[in-house]
């Protein structure tokens, strides 16, 4: 296991380096002009030149990249123009809310996926299977920002069960405040994971050892709980991992809808305030977050399935 971890960590280095390069090239080589955008109509030619100098945009590209790497290396990730503080400080302030939302929505997604996938698989081809499939085809097509607003109309305005926005102070009020946004993200995730867990369960159900277990007289509950589900879940861990990129991307829109103080809402704010260093820093933070969560799911996968470690 240790060798596997070291190997996986070593693979991270080129990816992380590539992320900084891709982010840099995308944001700098595009025809956009951040200094002009930042100053808008207020900026005369001199102000724009001054801002370019301040952002380091007057330097040759390779020197800009080195400065950019130095900002990352120093741990500050650059300095926000609008907040006049290191980007890293802002990230650390906003990170907990985003991580909380990702964790809470993942728990809700798993809680929805396991029973529905089991039910679907056991009634394969029947009306329940079809209804679940149809319902989640519709969920896939739902814009998350719209679903968020519909939940607000239904469960915060018409039935005042939940607050319309905000984050809450203690654990209970945080659960209360973030249930609707977490549910929106969880539904989108579940629409993808239910399908994959259902096929995994069906694949396991067809295997020889399940037939053996059945022949030995295992009841449905024991068969599913002990023999089928654990094995089907293991293969679904990697599917869940593959969706983290979507979940993290989804938080950007949902945090804005529910006014949650996370990285996503900060990111959208940074776009509107044209806070160029902040946009850049957050883009990298999001990518690193995805890479780290993928690493965690890979390790969990290897822990659960010894075959992976030996490959």
């Amino acid at each position: 296991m240790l060798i596997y971890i070291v190997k996986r960590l070593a693979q991270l280095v080129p990816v992380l380096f590539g992320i900084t390069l891709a982010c840099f090239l995308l944001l700098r080589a595009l025809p956009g002009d951040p200094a002009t955008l930042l100053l808008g109509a207020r900026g005369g030619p001199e102000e724009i030149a001054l801002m370019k100098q301040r952002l380091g945009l007057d330097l040759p590209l390779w020197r800009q990249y080195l400065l950019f790497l130095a900002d990352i290396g120093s741990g500050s990730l650059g300095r926000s123009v609008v907040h006049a503080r290191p980007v890293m400080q802002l990230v650390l302030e906003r990170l907990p809310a985003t991580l909380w939302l990702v964790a809470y929505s993942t728990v809700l997604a798993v809680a929805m996926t396991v029973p529905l996938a089991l039910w679907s698989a056991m009634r394969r081809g029947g009306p329940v299977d079809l209804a679940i499939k149809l319902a989640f085809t519709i969920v896939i097509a739902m814009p998350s920002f719209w679903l968020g607003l519909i939940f607000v109309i239904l469960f915060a305005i018409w039935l005042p069960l939940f607050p319309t926005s905000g984050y809450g102070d203690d654990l209970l009020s945080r659960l209360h405040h973030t249930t609707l946004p977490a549910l929106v993200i969880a539904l989108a995730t579940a629409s993808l994971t239910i399908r994959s867990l259902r096929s995994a369960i069906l694949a396991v159900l067809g295997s020889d050892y399940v037939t053996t277990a059945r022949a030995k007289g295992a009841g449905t509950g024991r068969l599913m709980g002990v023999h089928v589900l654990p094995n089907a879940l293991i293969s679904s861990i990697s599917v869940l991992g593959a969706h983290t990129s979507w979940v993290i991307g989804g938080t950007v829109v949902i945090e804005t809808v529910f006014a949650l103080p996370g990285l996503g809402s900060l990111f959208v704010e940074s776009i509107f305030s044209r806070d160029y260093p902040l946009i850049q820093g957050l883009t990298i933070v999001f990518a690193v977050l995805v890479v780290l969560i993928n690493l965690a799911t890979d390790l969990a996968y290897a822990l659960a399935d010894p075959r992976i470690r030996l490959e």
Partner: protein
Amino acid sequence: MSRFRSNPSLFVGLAMLALLAAFVALGQVWTPHDPFEVDYGNTLQAPSLANWFGTDDLGRDVASRVLAGGYVDLKVALICVAAPAVLGVVIGAISGFIGGRVDTFIMRVTDIFWAFPFYVLVIAIVGVLGPGEANLYLAFLLVNWISFARIVRGEVLVLRNLEFVQAARSLGCTTPRIVTAHILPNAVNPAIVYAMADVVLTILAVTSLSFLGLGIQPPTPEWGLMISDGRQFLFDAWWIATFPGFAIIYTGVTFALIGEGLDTALRPKG
């Protein structure tokens, strides 16, 4: 009837697409009211016989705007899939067929792009370029090609070693001819299926960007923008944000069903 039974998703999806196309075309030539007409004497009216989906804060007819808004969303989403799809197929075919260092390099690039959440990348690019329709196209072109390239590359890797390709080569076919006439026609099916799923994701992304104020700009009738307008009036006028959402869902389900149907229809039998 038996063909319907064998692939209901495709038939239902295509029927829904025909209806969608009819409504979008209708929305360009006729709407119950002028979608741009402001009427301050008739603001925030609940759905009624005169205004089926109610009116918004400027007294504009929501039903007319939903009908007229389909064109922009559908056009932008289709271009934002089709253009990167072509790019991705070409890159994927090159990567898979040439192999070696070129392939390794292209795959590393896609790995890195893959680490960025889709929304984050698109929003960042639009943020640097500034909002607007043309910049949406550029942003999606830069981001959306990756999946197509990976899918086609995988197919090409398998196909290029099959007997019929070797037969074509021994008959003296040139490399470009082998790729375009023998390999690509067989490699694009999974890309076509993926394109349908991608239309669903892209419609969601385009409307999300407009909702955030980074996509299509007002006063164009566009579904994401309308939902964004309705957001300020959730307490008094639920209909403004609700109905454009139904239109987005209908469009998404249409393409999801077609994608599923094509997956069944194009999958090699046996």
